[in-house]
């Protein structure tokens, strides 16, 4: 079951990768939008998580 699910994820990611490469050849800016959006969402999320780490460090330091 786990194996099957992993296989499914693998297939999905391969298909996505393939589509994105296709997209990149025709539409450089669309490709940039996909990459850029993923990147800034993740950066914003990481920034939030980092704040929690900073707060904890401050509290344990005091």
């Amino acid at each position: 079951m786990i194996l099957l699910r992993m296989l499914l994820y693998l297939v999905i990611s391969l298909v996505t990768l393939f589509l994105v490469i296709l997209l990149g050849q025709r539409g450089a800016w669309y490709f940039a939008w996909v990459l850029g959006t993923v990147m800034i969402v993740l950066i914003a999320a990481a920034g939030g998580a980092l704040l929690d780490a900073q707060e904890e460090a401050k509290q344990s330091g005091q």
Partner: protein
Amino acid sequence: MHSLQTVVDLSRWQFAATALYHFLFVPLTLGLSFLLAAMETVYVTTGRKIYKDMALFWGKLFAINFALGVATGLTMEFQFGTNWSQYSRFVGDVFGAPLAIEGLMAFFLESTFVGLMFFGWDRMSRGKHLLVTYMVALGSNLSALWILVANGFMQSPREAVFNPVTMRLELTSFADLIFSGDAQAKFVHTSIAGYVTAAMFVAGISGWYMLRNRHMELAKRSFRMAALFGVFASIGVISLGDALGFIDGGAQPAKLVAMEAMWKTRTPPAGFNVIAFPSQKQQRNLYEIQIPKLLTPLVTRTMDTVIPGADEVENQAMVRMKDGIPAVLALKTLSADPTNQPALAQFKAHEQDMGYALLLKRYAPDLRAATPADYQRAARAVIPNVAVIFWSFRVMVLAGFSMLFYLGVAAYCSLNNRVQDRRWLLKLAPWLIPAPFIACEAGWLVAEMGRQPWTVYGVLPTWMSVSTHSVGYLVFSLTGFVLIYSAFIVVEAYLMLKFIRKGPDEGRLAAPLH
């Protein structure tokens, strides 16, 4: 003629007013949906409840904004047909397709999942709900994609050809429609402008809370995430804006003339007008402050390419008007007899300039009798309103760079975890909330007013695009829109401010009636 002019003007006012109004709500939806998804991502990965509170609180403001975006979006869908019916018939074969796909692919996704996003918190696993939120964000941005694909066609129509048998433009390549450079750059520019709008909105309100020492935990985290989200988005908006300017300026020299208030063609490298007071009537700037040699490298990426000024653009337009006349004359013959070979040959030979002859037709209804004065007037009309576009462009750029600067500093201070001590930074935040909205509206003006006098650049003039209405119809509809839209904005602003003041912890949003 007089009444046609009034109908054209009123139809333009109505479209511009309703589109600008709609565009007050759209950018926030585009960006806030992804920012909500980012907050929820932290909630799902770390399990900290504060991030769910954030997603819920900002989600409430999102909902208030979203309802008006949906409502005013309906108007846009109607208006092509009600007020621009000749345009709709003329380009529906090309322009209608992305609009239909927008509904099929994007609106269904966004609207179906937005209900689950609001109502489904307790009905599915965290992971599934996160997926739902991402689908809302994806759906709203896909709708922006398709409407801007349609708009890209209006700006640089290269994927369609006029069919004299059906008297309209017909699609030749679907791929060219989707992948037109204009559509691509404009979609990314607009979508990311929405991200900046949401970032400034969230940062502004969070700053206001922190200043009052309210909801500190929520505000600090929201501010940090918004600042990071916004600073990268700002960089993207500015670089894509530059790319869009390059593409659009190449495709539409008249728009470039208006953006830079450049009346005369100058020997390269031309100077850049920082400030100018253009006079459309005298075709010159009454006053200007110029940085020498800057414009040519900015616009062409070279030092020696000639950028056509208004004089050159007008001259070229006159040549094309003259060349297009035989095509329009042939059409009349073809409408009665589509197999007439000489007429077909005449049409084919002059097809590429037909739009310019149609533009001239407004000043010379009988094209064969067009006088030099008619040509002159039509040529003047090729240059859009320079003062409005020149200044809108500068307002947009200034607002863009101010936000980049502010968000950069904000992200830096927030990463140091010192933002709550920087009172000036927090005080500034709410005052900057209007900046992205102003920038978005100004950007619309540059792009769409700068396209005038065309609805489809170089192909279909605006005056030929309107419906055959009486002035009374337009007065009726404009009055209705003004009344309804004014009432709506008052209600929306009231609710928005009320729920911002109330803040996240003050109990349930929809209080029971006692």
